[in-house]
């Protein structure tokens, strides 16, 4: 009996949201919101498809999400592992949700809308980094934008370097691949080659 299965049950439990949390939601990018987007080097991109939902990390230099106008943003698709789960979802269901992180700030910016993928050569060229254009650009029509004073970030102490883990305290990518493949792939060689591979394929 303890599983909640309807919106009515939820509202009985949580009440109705306060005006502050609904007033801040607008359908365009205001000058204030623009400044958060321009300060953000990292976005979590949520997409959905028949296989389920996906939440993908996207990052680059600050302001890598370009504000085309107050109803449109654009994000280059930089080099990854070619799984392209996000893109595979977008071509089948255009709905997307973006969460912008701004390192050092306790606020996050949320932007929901509809996306399409473009390979327009002039558009790709306008996103060149170190001579390399992205293979596609995600163009997003803005539907809802709001900021969130994220208790989540404060509780997590996300930007406090003193709480960060040492990278070698966790299993490496090579360790993980070796364990999952009975040592067919991965291992120390994979980890040793990774920095060079990443550097060569960063953009």
């Amino acid at each position, binding site marked *: 009996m*303890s*599983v*909640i299965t309807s*919106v009515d049950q*939820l509202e009985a*439990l*949580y009440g109705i949201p306060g005006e502050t*949390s609904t007033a801040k939601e607008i359908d365009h990018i205001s000058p*204030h919101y623009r400044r*958060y987007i321009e300060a953000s*080097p990292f976005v979590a*991109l*949520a997409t*959905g498809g028949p296989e*389920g*939902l*996906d*939440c993908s*990390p996207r*990052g*680059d230099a600050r302001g890598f999400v370009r504000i*085309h106008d107050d109803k449109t943003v654009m994000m280059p698709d930089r080099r*990854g592992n*070619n*799984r*392209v789960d996000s*893109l595979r979802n977008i*071509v089948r269901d255009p709905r997307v*949700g973006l*969460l912008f992180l701004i*390192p*050092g*700030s306790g*606020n*996050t910016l949320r932007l*929901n809308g509809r996306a*399409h*993928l*473009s*390979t*327009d050569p*002039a558009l790709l*060229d306008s996103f060149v980094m170190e001579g390399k254009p992205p293979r596609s650009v995600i163009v997003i029509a803005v539907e809802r934008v709001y900021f969130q004073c994220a208790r*989540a*970030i404060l*509780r*997590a102490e*996300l930007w406090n*370097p003193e709480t960060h*883990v*040492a*990278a070698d*305290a*966790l299993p490496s*990518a090579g360790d*993980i*691949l070796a*364990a*999952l493949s009975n040592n067919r*792939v991965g291992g120390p060689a994979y980890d040793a080659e990774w920095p060079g591979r990443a550097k060569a394929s960063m953009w």
Partner: protein
Amino acid sequence: MLDWRLHFLREPGMSIVTTLAELDDLYGAAVPASITKEIDYISAEYARYIEASPFVTLATVGPEGLDCSPRGDTNGFVRIQDEKTVMMPDRPGNNRIDSLRNIVRDPRVALLFLIPGSGNTMRINGRARIDTDPALRDSFAVDGKAPRSVIVVAVERVYVQCARAVIRADLWNAARHVDPDSLPSIAQMLGAIAARQTA
């Protein structure tokens, strides 16, 4: 050279990718390691990343669209119940509860775990339910306060990602962080929106 700002004048044209076949032509096959590492349970190695993570972005979907919500707490706040189940307390927020409103109507969720200091991220995709069992909620109490509900996720796909995105963003480099005072404050943002609405 063509001007990118004319993009919308050229669209719709040949440059919009609309099918999986076109995507495969553009990107080719996935890197083999990216397939190997995807499993349908939480391995011992993956558990260590989840236990080290204080921050998750939670993707949900409902009739109003997709949503991507920040969730955070102390390291390991997402509890590994068993290798097919994780649980996340719903801590106080703004009562918008967009994520929960989505979950009761569509159980699909995707979690992206950030591990401050690490260039790797952990991904879990699965199906969720919202549980208010008193004993379960009490088991997540902090400072004597139990969450009002717990999101219980049945794990379907798990993988780690050496995230170039984290490296490119230089996400954990404190020297690159912004001064929060250089950005509009909450009062400024709400004030501007209210002014526009009453104008």
